């Protein structure tokens, strides 16, 4: 069994538990184990884009220092926001010595972070370490005939230097879906933002975005959409139905970990959702149960 240190993040540790349950089961089927960090704090979710805002890097630096202190080189995330914030912070802090020194001086209750921790998204681990061939071999319940629209959102692929794939023409989700036997339906809205945290300050914006993303997926004939971020999932699932006149074409969405688990014969941990994904799964011969 291979093992990798894992950072859940607040969303996954709370509302998006299903993302983690499914990932654990799927990785187990692939011979990998996620070892959760002992103590962790919020990464800050939105990376600070300012040059002088060092305080916003304290959270990520604290996490990275603890990873390093525990003797680990890699840190796995499932959530794209955590992935991006941690990875960008790691780069920001280590590309200029002065920034790292100042943050370390402030963090006098942690061992110094010296750089070098590699933040890894689960999609990277599957693609680069495990490999799609191994995934294909492990498939027990091929997702044959299931048409899935990959929804990348923003932080998984942007900015280019940090993203797991090309920001304009990513294919990591398509490739994974192919390995699982599903039929990827790429969408022109697949890399366009869901409204992100504006869902809190301007929910109508998130409604419009979720509606546009779902309509594009439906036009491509998708049964469902697949996401890699609890916030995308929330907006697509909750805000989509709130958009005026959207309910007739509601397209459900699942985390990529849930489809992975489903195909590998592990628990896909399908929770109660606003837009129930079970009917479309059942229609493709992939009935799943919702746990009470």
């Amino acid at each position, binding site marked *: 069994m291979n093992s990798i240190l894992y950072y859940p993040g607040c969303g996954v540790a709370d509302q998006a538990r299903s993302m983690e349950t499914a990932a654990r089961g799927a990785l187990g089927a692939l011979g990998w184990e996620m070892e959760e960090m002992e103590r962790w704090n919020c990464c800050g979710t939105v*990376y600070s884009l*300012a040059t002088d805002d060092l305080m916003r890097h304290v959270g990520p630096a604290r996490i990275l220092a603890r990873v390093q202190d525990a003797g680990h080189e890699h840190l796995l995330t499932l959530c794209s926001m955590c992935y991006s914030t941690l990875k960008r912070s790691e780069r920001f802090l280590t590309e200029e010595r002065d920034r790292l020194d100042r943050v370390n001086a402030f963090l006098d209750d942690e061992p110094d972070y010296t750089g070098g921790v590699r933040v890894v998204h689960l999609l990277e681990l599957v693609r680069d370490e495990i490999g799609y061939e191994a995934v294909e071999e492990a498939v027990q319940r091929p997702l044959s005939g299931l048409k899935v629209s990959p929804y990348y959102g*923003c932080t998984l692929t942007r900015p280019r230097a940090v993203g797991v794939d090309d920001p304009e023409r990513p294919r990591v989700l398509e490739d994974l879906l192919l390995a699982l036997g599903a039929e990827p339906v790429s969408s022109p809205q697949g890399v366009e933002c869901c409204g992100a945290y504006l869902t809190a300050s301007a929910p109508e914006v998130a409604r419009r975005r979720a509606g546009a993303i779902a309509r594009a997926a439906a036009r491509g004939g998708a049964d469902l959409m697949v996401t890699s971020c609890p916030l995308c999932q929330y907006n697509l699932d909750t805000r989509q139905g709130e958009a005026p006149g959207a309910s007739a074409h509601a397209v459900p969405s699942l985390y990529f970990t849930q489809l992975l688990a489903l195909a590998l014969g592990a628990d896909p941990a399908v929770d109660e959702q606003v837009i129930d994904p079970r009917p479309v799964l059942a229609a493709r011969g992939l009935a799943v149960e919702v746990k009470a």
Partner: protein
Amino acid sequence: MAEQLRLAKAVLSVQFARRVEELSGQSPYRCYQCGKCGAGCPFADSMDLLPNQVLRLVQLGDEKVLEAGAPWSCASCLACEVRCPRGVDIAKVMEAVRLLALRKGRSPVALGKVPGERLPQIAVVGISRKMTP
């Protein structure tokens, strides 16, 4: 929208443009106003100024940009960043404008008024960080 873009010398503040440049690490003068950022922006329809117009005001050193709504409609999705032919990270300019407003105590949201529904942590932390001083 357009009447806000006055080219009067009286409003020019090179100092303001430099401050935005310092905070964002982006030279606003690289922008040649092609408009590609706004064309692909998923939030352009809810902005009072297009992203290139925000950049124009910054180029002109017009501090009125601090009162614009556009930076608060930007979700830092970076669609503009990957598409800008001049390599301007426009999201960073938006962040700098937001921060300059926030640091003067101007905030577009009151945290207490977040709707009572159960929002994901990412959303609440996101607006806390992007929109509260």
